[in-house]
């Protein structure tokens, strides 16, 4: 045999990779103008909240009795001043921190707790399902506003208690959605096939269930952020959440309500912010939902 | 004059990104009292063609071109009111899923009587009598009782019969059947097929029966049209098409069937590959990539219909080659 020169080895096959699920969701989301705009608004508010100390033109806490309730467009106070003469723009900017905190945190915590309970209920079925779902139904029986107010009232005013009561309000709906989606996925043939290959419940949930249920639950939860912001504002408005002099939007709305006949435009500003932010979250949530619909 | 005349029908779905030509250039004729089976796989355009006859394809998401004449009426030109009268009285449709046609909140008797009253303007009593007669005719046992039943209270075969009764309630001239037996059990399917044949003879109906099952087509049809990728690739008298198929796709379908006569362990002859993506069809014959007779020309030239026998056409450039494949049977 002739000594062979090292031949060029056959090229290792190049494995094609399809676009992953999340990158395809992102691609579809990018084409949705409304969702992109909503996301831009959300990001802008987040950025403003993070950089509040640098963007805000004035100290949100320092007022002056001489310049109370200036109208929008006053020199030095582009959005006017509130009933204590504090700069509205700065207060709205700092208020974004509070409102985002109050809007996002309860939903986030409820998302984790609710998903866990809902997926457990949906996947285990039977008695476990009954116990979890019926306990959730008890909380569900109260209107969410009433429940939040009652819980906050019972726990006592304060930021921590307001967050806690909002979280409790959001767990039941998330559990319900999580349970419904999981029950649906559990009946799919691929879960059956996974069981048939001898996989344990934990592995099946990790590999086959989570990936298919977390998306829909997350979409639902993003839609709740706006509800949470409005409820939080409501609690503050009633004096059960954030306390003065903090510039939380709901609270600002409350304190400014006395000025509604004097300077209605300024008084409405916090409400406008609440409205814009919650609409942005809702529109983004809708866009995400349609982007996550995989065609067959 | 044929009751159905379709000339160069094109239906394009424009809902998603790329327009999808579901039907591209279909010509069909159906005589009065004749049963045509449209045979094809999923995506062949058979159901879309059928729906075009009653303008049932979603108007906003699809575009319909070409001419469709049913009983002398131009279906595309019908106004709203004319279309309502046309649906039901001139042409009626039965579906694979009876739930598409039957309303779950009314009894079957109410639904049929309602349809009769709206179309013929007769009294409720007369309408109920007609409904009863129809139930007897489609061989529903204890018809008086079943007229009082709701659709969900009946078994699959009975629901299918009730839907046929509803379709026939306004004495249409044309019955359109969209795979009405596909979801049924074998013993029930044959009952429905025999029933359709009887009704067709008795009422002198023209029937267009869409199916993916050659056996079903053989049981009901006078003529067969084989569809592939939105085109009629072969059409002709049923016996001709089954015994003397001339399009390679029809030949492949007939050969790839598992049937009793095959020896154990024999391999099935197959058509390689999969049906094409309609949004991205090759320029020539759409079947060329899967065809065992394809030549270089087939990939570039779209074949027109070639006459290959009495009333028998095949859209293929290689009909000479397929003639050679025929079993040695004397012409005629």
């Amino acid at each position, binding site marked *: 045999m002739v000594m062979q020169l090292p031949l060029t080895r056959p090229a290792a*096959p190049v*494995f*094609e990779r*399809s676009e992953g*699920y999340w990158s395809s969701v992102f691609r579809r989301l990018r084409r949705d103008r409304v969702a992109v705009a909503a996301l831009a608004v959300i990001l802008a508010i987040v950025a403003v909240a993070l950089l509040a100390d640098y963007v805000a033109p004035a100290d949100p806490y320092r007022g002056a009795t001489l310049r109370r309730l200036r109208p929008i467009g006053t020199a030095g106070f582009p959005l006017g001043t509130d009933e204590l003469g504090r700069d509205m723009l700065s207060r709205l900017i700092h208020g974004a921190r509070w409102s985002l905190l109050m809007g996002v945190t309860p939903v986030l915590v409820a998302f984790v707790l609710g998903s866990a309970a809902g997926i457990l209920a949906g996947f285990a079925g039977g008695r476990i399902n009954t116990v979890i779902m019926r306990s959730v139904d008890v909380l569900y029986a109260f209107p969410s506003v009433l429940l939040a107010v009652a819980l906050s009232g019972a726990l006592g005013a304060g930021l921590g208690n307001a967050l806690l009561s909002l979280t409790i309000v959001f767990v039941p709906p998330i559990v319900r959605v999580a349970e419904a989606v999981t029950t649906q996925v559990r009946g*799919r*043939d*691929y879960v*059956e*096939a*996974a*069981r*048939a*290959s*001898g*996989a*344990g419940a934990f592995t099946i949930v990790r*590999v*086959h269930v989570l*990936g*298919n249920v977390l998306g829909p639950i997350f979409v639902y939860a993003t839609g709740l952020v706006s509800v949470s912001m409005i409820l939080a504002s409501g609690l503050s408005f009633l004096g059960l959440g954030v306390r003065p002099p903090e510039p939380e939007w709901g609270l600002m709305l409350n304190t400014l309500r006395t000025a509604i006949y004097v300077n209605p435009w300024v008084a409405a500003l916090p409400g406008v912010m609440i409205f814009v932010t919650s609409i942005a979250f809702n529109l983004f949530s809708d866009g995400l939902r349609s982007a996550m619909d*995989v065609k*067959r | 004059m044929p009751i159905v005349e379709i000339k160069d029908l094109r239906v394009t779905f424009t809902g998603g990104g790329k327009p999808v030509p579901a039907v591209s250039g279909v010509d069909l004729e159906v005589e009065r009292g004749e049963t045509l089976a449209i045979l094809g796989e*999923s995506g062949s355009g058979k159901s879309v063609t059928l729906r075009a006859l009653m303008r049932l394809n979603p108007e906003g998401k699809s575009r319909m071109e070409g001419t469709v004449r049913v009983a002398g009426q131009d279906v595309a030109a019908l106004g709203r009111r004319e279309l309502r009268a046309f649906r039901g009285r001139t042409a009626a449709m039965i579906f694979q899923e009876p739930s598409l046609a039957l309303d779950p909140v009314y009894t079957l008797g109410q639904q049929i009587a309602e349809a009769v009253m709206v179309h013929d303007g007769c009294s409720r009593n007369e309408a109920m009598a007609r409904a009863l007669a129809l139930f007897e005719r489609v061989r529903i*046992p204890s018809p008086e009782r079943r007229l009082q039943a709701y659709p969900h209270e009946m*078994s*699959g*075969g009975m629901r299918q019969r009730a839907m046929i009764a509803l379709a026939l309630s306004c004495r249409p001239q044309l019955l359109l059947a969209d795979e009405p037996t596909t979801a049924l*059990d*074998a*013993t*029930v*399917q*044959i*009952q429905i*097929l*025999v029933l359709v044949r009887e009704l067709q003879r008795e009422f002198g109906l023209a029937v267009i029966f869409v199916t*993916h*099952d*050659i*056996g079903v087509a*053989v*049981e009901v049809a006078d003529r067969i049209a084989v569809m592939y990728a939105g085109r009629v690739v072969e059409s002709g008298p049923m*016996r001709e098409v089954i*015994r003397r198929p001339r399009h390679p796709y029809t030949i492949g379908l007939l050969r*790839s*069937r*598992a*049937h*009793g006569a*095959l020896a*154990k362990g024999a*391999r*099935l*002859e*197959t*058509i*390689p590959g*999969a*049906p094409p993506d309609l949004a991205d069809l090759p320029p020539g014959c759409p079947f060329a990539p899967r065809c065992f007779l394809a030549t270089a020309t087939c990939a570039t030239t779209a074949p027109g219909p070639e006459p290959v026998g009495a009333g028998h056409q095949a859209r293929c450039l290689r009909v000479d080659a397929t003639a050679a494949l025929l079993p040695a049977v004397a012409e005629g």
Partner: protein
Amino acid sequence: MNGGSQAATDPGSGRGGPAQPLLTVRGLVRHFALPGKLLGRSKAAVHAVDGVDFDVLKGETLGIVGESGCGKSTTARLLMHLINPSAGELIFDGEKVGSRELPLREYRRQVQMVFQDSYASLNPRLTIEASIAFGPSVHGVPRRQAVERARDLLARVGLDPARFAGRYPHELSGGQRQRVNIARALALRPRLLILDEAVSALDKSVEAQVLNLLADLKQEFGLTYLFISHDLNVVRFVSDRVMVMYLGRVAEIGPSEALFSAALHPYTAALTRSMPSMDPDARTEAPPIAGDPPNPIDPPPGCRFHTRCAFVADACARRTPVLTPAPAAVLPSARPDHRAACLMLEPGSGHPRAPAAPAAAE
């Protein structure tokens, strides 16, 4: 112990030897309770599978046919232990399933299933390769090897791994997805493959390809198939033996050719004649039987088929037939492995067409 005297010569034939059935099913029952009225339990139950016995022999393809509600799919899921039986036992190659010798997990490695809906049986979030590799990794095969095996299997089922391994289910056609499902089922190197209407949803031109593939794989991996379908032509083509089910019970079981050419049970005969004719000159003129299959919630007593049977006699509603081979007097070509549950075959059953009871009996 089973097969103790009979040394297994072929290593592929497993523990019990070639004559030991691969799977023995005894007295399999599954009733589904219907939700009761408010308060109090309802006694109504769906008799999905109601006392089924059969063997699956090593290396054969056993076909199961029947109409909706006959229990064929429930049987498949019971065999796979995806639902628990109300009664009955499974013996896999001489060992009781679920016993210490053969725990469920180990049994499931050796028995795999392909489902009808090719899309629903693949996780839409996993690549093809990950779906196939899942089973082996569950059973402790290292990730790298599991992926290797997945790619190798993709090639075996006729899909180029370089093109398909990284794709997602929705990017494949129905036929390709079903190939993936077959590869996934084979990834655990099973001995028995349950095919539950595995080709029924495919287009005819693709169905033939998959049937050929299944035949190749059977040969290559020495598999045994349980092939469930409503399509008699396909079952006849692929099966060595066929079992006909009606309303949760076995109506007839026997070698494929014998069963289709000389059916013992009136239901089998009617079912065979109900298949659409392929001969333009021999269309079906009259339906072989009338009516729909009855509801399995409240099955008729005695022989379950008696409500639709052309040969019904008084005895049929009273006495439940057992699987019997045809007596030689009735059918000279009768084979002992071809049996049907019909009173016309049982000597002294009280049916006018039944053979006379032998003198010894009662």
